[in-house]
């Protein structure tokens, strides 16, 4: 009986601790999100989306150029990494399951997925910024595309692998060459999954700061071209939060709110579409 009581007490203690852990997690996370929502939403107004930043220390102004800059760089990064990643993923799933190149590329992609993004920033600085002679929107977009590439490669591979064998066999049995079977049948079957992978990669880079610090830098002006330093929300957030001005702190919260919301919305949409599929 004594033993039984001891076991029950231990059990009870662990259950309480585990529930407490879950509650702590929940409280901290609601706290963070709540702060971002409350302090962020109050900083957002019409000017925020339409005006250029005001000079340091002056109130007012907005971050229109940073919003456009982030969108532009993300779109360019997507345009670079999607074809690259989809083709590489196709090789991994279709031709390179057992080959040395296949397993090396798979391993390398897995490492790159979790590689420190600041090191990617240093790499692109050396490769692009140093060669071109100045910080630029292109360099920022290239850095982001290097972060997206391994994510897209691996999800494409997984999604293609999930297409039922019968699909391949029936297309091949009808006399379609392998590449036509891939392009017209397998890609179509895997389309939703591949788009989900791309969206998740976009959501990931939309909040990336470290790789942009030494590539696109930041700028208080409208961009004339992608050959010059380009304003973007995350680096602006970093600079604003580190500044001594209250108005800039408020704007930093506003950007944190905007970035968090966009990332959450994209993540939720992809999640729902994945659920529908399975």
């Amino acid at each position: 009986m004594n033993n039984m009581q001891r076991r029950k007490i231990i059990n009870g203690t662990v259950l309480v601790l585990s529930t407490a852990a879950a509650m702590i997690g929940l409280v901290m996370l609601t706290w963070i999100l709540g702060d971002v929502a409350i302090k962020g939403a109050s900083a957002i107004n019409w000017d925020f989306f339409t005006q250029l930043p005001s000079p340091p220390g002056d109130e007012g102004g907005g971050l229109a150029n940073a919003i456009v800059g982030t969108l532009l760089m993300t779109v360019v990064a997507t345009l670079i990494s999607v074809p690259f990643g989809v083709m590489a993923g196709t090789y991994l799933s279709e031709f390179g399951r057992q080959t040395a190149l296949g397993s090396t590329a798979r391993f390398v992609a897995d490492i790159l997925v979790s590689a420190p993004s600041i090191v990617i920033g240093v790499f692109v600085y050396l490769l692009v910024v140093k060669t071109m002679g100045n910080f630029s929107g292109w360099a920022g977009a290239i850095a982001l595309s290097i972060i997206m590439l391994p994510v897209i490669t691996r999800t494409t591979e997984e999604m293609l692998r999930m297409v039922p064998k019968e699909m391949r066999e029936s297309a091949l049995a009808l006399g379609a060459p392998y590449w036509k079977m891939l392009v017209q049948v397998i890609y179509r079957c895997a389309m939703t999954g591949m788009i989900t992978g791309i969206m998740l990669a976009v959501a990931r880079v939309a909040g990336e700061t470290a790789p942009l610090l030494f590539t696109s830098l930041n700028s208080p002006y409208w961009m004339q071209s992608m050959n010059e330093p380009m304003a973007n929300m995350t680096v602006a957030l970093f600079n604003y939060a580190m500044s001594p001005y209250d108005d800039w702190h408020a704007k930093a919260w506003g950007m944190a709110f905007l970035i968090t919301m966009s990332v959450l919305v994209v993540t939720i949409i992809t999640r729902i579409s994945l659920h529908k599929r399975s």
Partner: protein
Amino acid sequence: MNQATRKLSGDTIFRALTMTFAAGVVLLFVTLIVVLWKESQLSIDAFGFGFLFSSDWNPVTEKFGAWIPIFGTLVSTFLALLFAIPLSLGIALFLTELAPAWLRTPFGTAIELLAAIPSIVYGMWGLFVLAPLMADHVQPWLGEHLGFIPLFSGPSMGIGMLTASLVLALMIIPFIASVTRDVFLMVPQNLKEAAYGLGCTTWEVARDITIPYGKKGIVGAVFLGMGRALGETMAVTFVIGNAYHLSWSLFAPGNSIASTLANEFTEADGDLYLSSLIELGLVLFLITFTVLTLAQLWLRRGMQESDR
């Protein structure tokens, strides 16, 4: 050209094309290492192996050593895991064994969504909300009651190693917790039911069935979380304090490799200074590379064993 060879050549071209891009991924990785290595050469020649263990960092006299940032990276990661692992396991256990069924999906999804929040948001929250709280309440209390331990001595500044580790922990908890939950869910139901049938308590089932069964996956998740924490920049840079001195106190400001790079890279004048920063980046890359490779090997071995 007849039908058969045309088909063949279409396939050959497509295959060669995809192969080129796959090779491109590998090439990118090789270029990354080669470029970092080449650009670090200046610093490697100047300081040799001593770079890793020297705690000088003086741009004026051009003496650079990586020990303080390396130490800061390792300590902040270690502390973050110390906070994050028990909490994550608790959350996963709660989600799979304790929570009422209606709560499991929304709670689980919430945790997963939190893993998607950009790290800069955690960092900024740490600076504006957590750091003042630490300075005004938590650190004075710790100093008063545990101040005799050198770890909790010194002035309460809010920003510093302890706050950075806490923010880092908050950032990796959702990640480790959601992977661990998935691992727990993979434990066959009949194994657990058999144990319950023998009269085991919930904790005994977790201790003797769920955790041993999912051990491989949990360790893999911890390794991946560690990889993230080591290279995390924005969550740390805001709150670590950016100071170059070693201290026993966790309240003291410090530096990590990533935060050093974030703060100094664009301001580095002088080739040796820049080259030392690049070498620092190379060191960070090699540390995470090692951790992530171990994680991959470990997870792959786990998969092969469960295939058998």
